C-alpha cells in the first residue's frame, strides 16, 4: 500500500500555515509565560498537612504584605506554589533571599504544619542573561545543524530540515503561549531536544530520498519523495510511538516538576513527526530538488549499489 503524501501537500501546507499563524498570534498576544529561571524572582513550594485552598494562602500573604504573590496548587491538594516577582521586594538588603523563610513562617503561624519543600531565588540579571543565552542557543543549534546537513547532504536539504525545525519550535512554544504553561529552563532543554528529535526524523527521511534519487532512474521528484516517505513511514511511526510511550510514563509518573518538560517534548515529538513528512519534503519539492543536485562521483555511486 502506498499513501500519496505529496498529493496532499497543499492541504498540509494550509494546515501548517494555520497552526503557525495560531502560534504566532498566541505568542504576540499572550506571550510566553516565562518562569522563574528567566524572569528572576522568588518561588516557594510549601506542603501542608491538609488540603489548603490557594485563596486562603493568598489572603494570608497579602496580610503579610506580599500583595502580588502568585499562588497556585502544585501537583496535589496539599502542595502550594508561591511565586513572588522581583519587583515586589522593597529596596534594601538582598532580602529576597530570605523570603522563603519569612513566607513559610507567616503561613505556619496561620495554618499550622508547613513544610518548606523548595525555595528558589533568581536575580533578575541572571534571568535576563539566561533569556539571551537561550535565544543564542536556539540560533546556534539551528545554524550548526544547517552547516552539518549542507556538508552531509546539500543546501536544499539543509533548508528543508531547518524549515521543519523552525516550524516545530514555533508551534511548540506557541502551544506554551496559548495555554500559558510556565516556560522554564527544563522546558528550554526539552525544546532543544525536540530540535534534536525532529531532525533525527528529517534526516532519516532525507537520507532515503537521496538514496532513491540516486538509485531510481524513473519517476518525477514528487513520486520519488513520496515513495521514500512510504518506505520510512513504518520506522517514523514506530520510533515516535516508543518515544511517546516513555513521555507518557514521564507525564504520568514523573511528578509535577518534570511535567512541563514532558509536555513540551510530547508536543514536539508529534509535530516533529508530522513535519519530517510534510514540511521538509514539501520544501524539497518547492526548491525543485532534482537528480542533478545529488549527482555523485562515479566511484561513490558504485559503492552504494548492493
Amino acid at each position: 500500500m502506498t499513501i500519496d503524501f505529496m498529493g496532499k501537500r497543499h492541504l498540509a501546507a494550509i494546515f501548517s500555515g494555520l497552526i503557525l499563524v495560531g502560534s504566532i498570534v498566541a505568542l504576540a498576544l499572550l506571550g510566553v509565560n516565562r518562569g522563574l529561571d528567566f524572569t528572576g524572582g522568588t518561588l516557594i513550594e510549601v506542603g501542608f498537612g491538609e488540603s489548603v485552598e490557594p485563596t486562603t494562602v493568598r489572603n494570608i500573604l497579602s496580610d503579610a504584605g506580599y500583595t502580588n504573590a502568585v499562588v497556585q496548587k502544585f501537583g496535589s491538594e496539599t502542595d502550594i506554589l508561591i511565586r513572588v516577582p522581583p519587583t515586589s521586594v522593597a529596596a534594601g538588603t538582598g532580602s529576597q533571599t530570605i523570603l522563603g523563610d519569612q513566607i513559610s513562617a507567616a503561613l505556619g503561624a496561620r495554618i499550622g504544619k508547613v513544610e518548606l519543600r523548595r525555595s528558589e531565588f533568581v536575580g533578575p540579571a541572571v534571568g535576563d542573561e539566561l533569556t539571551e543565552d537561550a535565544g543564542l542557543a536556539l540560533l546556534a543549534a539551528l545554524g550548526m545543524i544547517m552547516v552539518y546537513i549542507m556538508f552531509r547532504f546539500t543546501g536544499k536539504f539543509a533548508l528543508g530540515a531547518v524549515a521543519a525545525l523552525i516550524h516545530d519550535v514555533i508551534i511548540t512554544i506557541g502551544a506554551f503561549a496559548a495555554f500559558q504553561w510556565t516556560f522554564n529552563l527544563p522546558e528550554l532543554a526539552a525544546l532543544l531536544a525536540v530540535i534534536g528529535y525532529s531532525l533525527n526524523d528529517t534526516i532519516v527521511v532525507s537520507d532515503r530520498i537521496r538514496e532513491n534519487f540516486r538509485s531510481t532512474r524513473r519517476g518525477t521528484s514528487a513520486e520519488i519523495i513520496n515513495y521514500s516517505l512510504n518506505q520510512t513511514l513504518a520506522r517514523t511511526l514506530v520510533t515516535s510511538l516508543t518515544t511517546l510511550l516513555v513521555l507518557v510514563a514521564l507525564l504520568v509518573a514523573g511528578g509535577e516538576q518534570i511535567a512541563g518538560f514532558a509536555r513540551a517534548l510530547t508536543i514536539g515529538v508529534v509535530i516533529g513527526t508530522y513535519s519530517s513528512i510534510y514540511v521538509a519534503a514539501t520544501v524539497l519539492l518547492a526548491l525543485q530538488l532534482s537528480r542533478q543536485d545529488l549527482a555523485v562521483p562515479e566511484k561513490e555511486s558504485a559503492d552504494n549499489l548492493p
Partner: protein
Amino acid sequence: MADNGVFGQNLFGNRNDTKNPHHYPVWRHFVALFVLILACVYAAPNIYPPDYALQIQADNSDLRIGVRFMTQAAKILVDEGIRVKASNTTGKGGLIRLRSDVDQLRAQSILDDRLNPAGRDRQFVIALNLAQTTPAWLQDLGAQPMTLGLDLSGGIHFVLEVDMESAMAKALGDEAEKATNYLRQENIRYRASENMVQGKAVRIPFATETTRDQALRSLRSTNDYDSIIASESQGSPVVEIGIGDERMATIEDVAIEQNLTGLRSRINELGVAEPLVQRLGRSRIVIDLPGVQDSSEAKRLLDKFATLEFRLMAKPEDRPSSLEVMPYEGRTRRLQRANIVTGDSVINASQGLDSETGLPQVNIELDSEGGERMNRATGPNIGHSMAIIFIEQKPVIARKVIDGEVVEKRSIREERRLISVATIQAALGFRFRITGLSMSEARDLALLLRAGALAAPMYIVEERTVGASLGQENINRGVRAVVIGFVLVLLFMLFYYKVFGLVANIALAMNLMVLVAVMSLLGATLTLPGIAGIVLTVGMAVDANVLIFSRIREELAKSVPSIAIQAGYGRAFLTILDANITTLLVALILLGIGSGPVAGFAVTLSIGILTSMFTAIFVSRGIVHLIYGRRQVQKVWI
C-alpha cells in the same frame, strides 16, 4: 564529502561479505561481552543504597581522631538510645553510620553538644553525610555510585557574583601605594590625594610639571608598570598609571581564586560533607551544599566580609593630612591613616574568653612578615597607643523599577568601627589578642579571619533550596517513570518485531546499563532532568534498531533472509550516524548554556546517544548473527 560507502562497510565487514553473509568477525562478540561485564561492574554500586551517616572532623589540626575517639563517640550515641551501624576512622576524620535520617539529625545535635562544650572554640565539625555502601572489592576497581544532584539529594545551591570592579579598584589601590612608596624613596614629592584611583587608572598629582616629568622618568625606569603616561587632571599635572588587559585578566583570575579559597574554608566551618565550590564563567562562583537545609546560617558566612586594621594613634608630630578621625567610647579620636598590618597578614585566629574579665577575645597569629612589621611599629612606640579597627562589609542589592524594567543597584554597606585603643606595653610580635567585641562578633571575626579575606565582595544572584523529602520524592518518581517507560517499550517491541524485538530489548537493557555505568565512571551528576534524559534515551535508543529492522523487512521482500539482514545493518548504519551526530550537536549546545539540572539532561542525552549506537552495532547485530548467522535461514520472525 567522505566516501559514504567505506565508512559504513568498514564497520560491517567489507563488500565481500555480501557474497558471504555468514561472516561476522568473532572479535565483535568479545567486545560486546567485555563491555557488558565492565558495565555490570561499574553500574553495580548504584544498587547499594547509601547509609545515613555523620562525618566528624577536627577543626584544629592539632587534634587527631583515632579509633578510641570514634568508639567513644559511638558509645555516646548508643547511651542515648541511637542505634549505630558502624563507626570507623577515615583519612581525615571519622564516620558514624546510622539507621535513619531522624537518628542522623538527633545524633548530630547530641554529638555537637558533647564534643563542643559551650563558650569554647569549636573543636569538631560534625557534618551530615550519605555514606556509600559499595562493597570494598568494587571500590578497589574504582567503581562509584552516581552523584545525586541537589534536586534529588536536597540541599542548597548558590550562585555568587564576584564584584570585579571592587577587585580592580583594590588592585589599582595597591598599584598607587607601590608607586607612591617608590616616589617617597626616591625623594620625589607628589601631592597627597584622597582619590588617586579613578576609573581604570591611578592618577598621582604633582605640584609642577617638572617634578611630574621627573617622576615619570623615574617610574618608567622601573619597568614595573604596563602603561604610564603624563596627563593633566583637575588643573594639576598627573602621572597616569594603567593596567593592561592581560594583567586585568590575571587580576580577575586571582580574585576568583582567592574568593574560592576563602569560600571553601568558610564552608568547611559549616560542616558540609561534600560541598562543591567552583568557578562559573568569568565572574561567578557556584556553591552546592548537599544535605544543608538551613540557608540563613550558610548565607551569614558566604557573602560577609570582615577584617581588621591595626594602626597607631596620632602622635603630636603627625601632619593632619595623614590622620583620620573616628569615634570611640563617645569621644572622637585621631589616628594615623597608615596601617601597620591588616587582616590579610592573619594566619590563624581563634575565639576565646579573657581569663580575668570573662569577656570575649580573639587570639590572633600573624604571618612572619606581618609579625615583623608589628614588631618594628610597636617597638619604638611603647607607651603610645594602638588602635584596632573592625571592618565589616555586607553586599547590598537594591532593586528599583524604572520604566517597567527591574534595575539592580549593587553597593557595599561598610561598617568601620574603632573597637579598641590600647596602650602598647611591650613590642608586639606574631601572637597577641584583641578584646572589645561582642561574643558573636568575636566568633564571626575569628572565623572570617581564619578563613582568609576575600579579594572582592560577592553578591548572591541565585539561590535554590530543595527539601530532603522533595528530593527523595523526585528520586522515587524518576525511577518509576524509567521503569514504566522501559516496560512499555519492551512490550511494544516484542509485540511488533517478535524475535528481533527480543534482540532489541536485550540491546536496550544493556544500553541502560552501559549508560548508568558510563555516568558512574565519569562521576556525572544525576539530576531530575537527567532522569528525564534517561527516560527519553530509552524511547529513542530503540530507534537505531527500528531503522535496521524496517530496512531488513524491506530487504526481505527482495532477497533471502541472510542477505536481507546483512543489507539491513549495512544500509542503516550511515543513517543512524547522521541522525545521531546532529542530536549530539544539539546536546552539546545544551551543555554549553545550562548549568546544574539542565547540564545533567545534556550529559545523559549525549552519553545515551553514544551507548545506543554502540549497542545497536555491537550487541543487537551480534545476537542476530548468533541466532540467524550460522545456518541457511528460510524464515525470520520480524
